[in-house]
């Protein structure tokens, strides 16, 4: 019999269960507390006949004497089939929309398995999000993991929704100076909420409903008042669903994970209860490795048609990018989109701080055939000029605008126009990459010709006048 009433200690979300036999590491456990509450759990450590179990749904209502633990002989799984599309699940993958149980094609461990690096296919299909600050400067490609670093009160939800709504892949173009047409393809959105408010979750559900994307969406919701430790399982549920849709059903899947900060806090809670030696700011030393097992599940696999693109959202405590959560995330993901409170205060949407933002996969995603031959150079030039503009502005704060050289004045004017015309756009405004590049040319045309060191002569000759319209 694999059922025990031998709980010895209960500490936070953890139970120590004695006199167990044949228990394995990672095994799934069903817990039943004296007040009738049930919780799933898994084995974090097994030492002789003592198992340490983490209860995903908390330990409220349990006591050592009458808690019943049943070891299930398998790990935490998700049953998958095409029918998960259009459905809402709780943080542990159980239907939460009143609909029927899923009759699974197969049950998969939510922990997945690492993609063999040799089997990866390099992500190089440009995704047109229609947002200039992303497409022009820090473009997203299919199979990338590109998080949004945000803060409380910033419009990360609007931006993520806009990306989900507008994203399209372009056909390969035969002409170096022309981007291809938008392609239709089989896509899906997998949305995982970890600890966010009902209101935020509702914003997304409505968004998916109004755009009719709900039929192609799978939602896993663990909200602020749901059990915290459950959040450790939620993103893995979502990614297991995404892997099924991408690699078995050949779909292009966009995964939105929000908010990774609450995920990490749940992990910290468990680690503290285990009395582990903490790394920075109380977070466990293995936070990097743990996050990697989530983020690295994005990608493309050779010989399979589908892909998984991840846009995790995390709120930076105190807007501090060096906090362990954004820091370790940035070390794993393929770039980051950083939202800036000052831009937001000045009313610029999307308030993307383009300089510290980065897309590491852009080199391979843009250029002739994919977007346009001048894309990389224009993007480099915009970065350089905007950085010079920001520097000149700082100088002007101390010395006054009048003390600036003519070149610096040109850069200041450029930076203002750049924020106002290039970065700023509407939540429902969709710009094609050609429109974004035209805007870029119009802006760099304001600069002295000698300062355009990052654009090849031939492109200046070819695009400057026609695109900038002078």
């Amino acid at each position, binding site marked *: 019999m694999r059922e025990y009433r031998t709980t010895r200690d209960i500490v936070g979300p953890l139970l120590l269960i004695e006199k167990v036999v044949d228990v394995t590491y990672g095994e799934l456990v069903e817990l039943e507390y004296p007040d009738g509450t049930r919780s799933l759990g898994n084995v974090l450590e097994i030492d002789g006949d003592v198992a340490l179990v983490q209860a995903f749904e908390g330990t409220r209502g349990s006591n050592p004497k009458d808690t019943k633990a049943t070891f299930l002989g398998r790990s935490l799984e998700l049953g998958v089939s095409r029918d998960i599309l259009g459905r809402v699940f709780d943080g542990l993958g159980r239907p939460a929309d009143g609909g029927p149980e899923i009759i699974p094609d197969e049950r998969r461990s939510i922990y997945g*398995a690492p993609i063999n690096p*040799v089997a*990866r296919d*390099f992500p190089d299909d440009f995704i047109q999000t229609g947002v200039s600050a992303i497409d022009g400067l820090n473009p997203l490609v299919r199979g990338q993991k590109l998080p949004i670093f945000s803060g409380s009160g910033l419009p990360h939800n609007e931006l993520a929704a806009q990306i989900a709504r507008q994203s399209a892949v372009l056909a390969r173009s035969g002409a170096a100076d022309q981007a291809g047409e938008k392609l239709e393809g089989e896509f899906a959105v997998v949305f995982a909420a970890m600890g966010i408010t009902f209101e935020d979750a509702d914003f997304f559900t409505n968004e998916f409903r109004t755009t009719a994307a709900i039929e192609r969406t799978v939602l896993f919701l663990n909200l602020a008042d749901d059990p915290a430790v459950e959040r450790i399982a939620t993103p893995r549920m979502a990614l297991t669903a995404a892997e099924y849709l991408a690699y078995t059903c050949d779909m292009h899947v966009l995964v939105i994970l929000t908010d990774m900060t609450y995920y990490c806090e749940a992990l910290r809670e468990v680690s503290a209860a285990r009395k582990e030696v903490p790394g920075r700011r109380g977070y466990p030393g293995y936070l990097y490795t743990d996050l*990697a097992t989530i983020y690295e*599940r994005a*990608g493309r696999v050779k010989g399979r048609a589908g892909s998984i693109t991840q846009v995790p959202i995390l709120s930076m405590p105190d807007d501090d990018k*060096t906090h362990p959560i954004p820091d370790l995330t940035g070390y794993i993901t393929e770039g980051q989109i950083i939202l800036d409170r000052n831009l937001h205060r000045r009313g610029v949407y999307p308030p993307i701080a383009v300089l510290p933002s980065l897309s590491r996969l852009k080199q391979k995603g843009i250029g002739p055939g994919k977007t346009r031959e001048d894309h990389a150079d224009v993007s480099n030039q915009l970065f350089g000029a905007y950085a010079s503009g920001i520097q000149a502005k700082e100088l002007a704060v*101390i010395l006054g605008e009048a003390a600036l050289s003519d070149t610096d004045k040109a850069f200041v004017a450029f930076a203002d126009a750049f924020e106002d015309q290039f970065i700023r756009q509407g939540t429902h405004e969709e710009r094609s990459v050609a429109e974004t590049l035209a805007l870029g040319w119009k802006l760099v045309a304001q600069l002295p010709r000698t300062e355009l060191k990052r654009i090849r002569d031939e492109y200046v000759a070819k695009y400057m006048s026609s695109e900038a319209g002078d």
Partner: protein
Amino acid sequence: MEQGHIIKVAGPLVVARGLVESKMYDLVRVGEDGLMGEIIEMRGDRASIQVYEETDGLGPGDPVVATGAPLSVELGPGMLEAVYDGVQRPLDVLERQAGSFLSRGISAPGLDREKRWTFVPSVEPGTRVSGGDIIGVVQENVVVEHRILVPPALSGVIESITGGDFTVRDTVATLVDDEGGVHDLAMMQVWPVRVPRPYKKKVSADEPLTTGTRVIDTFFPIVKGGVACIPGPFGAGKTVTQHQIAKWSDAEVVVFIGCGERGNEMTDVLMEFPELVDPYSGEPLMKRTVLVANTSNMPVAAREASVYTGITMAEYFRDMGYNVVLQADSTSRWAEAMREISGRLEEMPGDEGFPAYLGTRLAAFYERAGKVECLGSVPAGASVARTGSISVIGSVSPPGGDLSEPVVQNTLRVVKVFWALQDQLAYQRHFPAIDWLTSYSLYVDKVTPHWAADVSKDFRARRDEAMSILQRENELAEIVRLVGLEALSPEEQILMETAKSIREDFLQQNAFRDDDQFSSLAEQDRLLSTILLFHAKALEAHAAGASLADIFAAPVRERIARAKYLAPDQMAEYDSIASDIETQLVGGARPEAAVASAGGER
């Protein structure tokens, strides 16, 4: 072999009882699937084992089988162009066996057992040989000749030796030692990864390792056999810099260890290197490359082992007499793997939870770099058997970019070159974002004679001048921030412009532009001297009465800005730029027409 059983499982750490004959660092097979593990602590009859695969599903009572041998790598033909995980399992073979995802319990030998290599003996029967002597060669691919060595501990007389096509385990020669023992020699050797391979002695390394990256080669050079680190926050350019060095440095063999980093970065190398042409050999870069890929989502214990696997393979090529470059990206992930295992062992933590032996382990790893006199008999008339070198370049990923953290600090104690990446430079897209004010190389004096002989006798002086201009710029920038550019003398304003030119026209180097990613030392010298020539002529012109505005508006400046994109066969352009500088920077007020016509020449 003895068998014990599991009594405890905690993540990557398993404790077993009943392994009394085994030794520290012995390899064991854990559970029904025979997962690879290594004994890292022994207390009484309890052995703690770090397991190189996920431990889900293991539990008390599961068997643990001793192998009696330490974790080792297989060394021989077939390593080049391969991709291994942290414990030398060939990832392409695993893909064929198990598909796109890494499943547990699969395994394959590091070297292909079936493949035949053409062995060409280079000694006759009857020759007396000792450890490290070359007994024959295999042309492993068009680029690298694989030299088959007598294993380090053996010496004696070659009794028989045969050329022909053999697998790595076939006997190609027999050796009779002085006690009369007969040893079969195959092309494959096995070596425990945690033990450095022996050499005769270390020698001073002074020959520059040319990387093609201007800020490195000119300002902060590394030598063949040197040690360098690249610390920097995420996105500052560690990986791109390391890839550049793997691509363009003048080494004979490159070992690249992706240690706990991104899967796609490995894919990138795998897709790019076979296409890129090595400027020295004219062949695909992959032919001289060995990859070790243990990405962040692969088992953490195998990540810990990956740096040892990599450096042991590097040592083996060094022993053949090659200059090897070994790169580890990132050493911080290795240190974190140590921290994780140490935490599970419940060891007393040091700074930030890292084990107290962090510094010792890092130092011992970097100490395996260097230029050495290889083992082997010294041929008549020569003074050494041969020399080989390993240059080790490790990236460091400090939390929050904070350089005071333990991994950076312990690394700085042992490395001689510090390439400090700065996030502010990266934000401006000034790449490589190597901070010229805080970086350093302790090899500059050592390489100077080589520069004088191979580049030009003035190269060192030019480098020093450029460096001091940049340092002066930093001081002057302080003044400009407080009181404005006007406060500077005309000479100082010229210096500020030159400094900007050095930064933008020389230091900035785009790794993704074919016409910019690689600069030979000769090109670096010409480019720098052109910028400094402009500086000198600008000062002269100003002294002779030219206005600053005219000087700064000289059309030749645009040519200087684009000079870095010149192809190697366009070096003559530099002469024409120099003559433009001479004609455009002249004393006195010039009529507008003169400026225009000078500009029109190009």
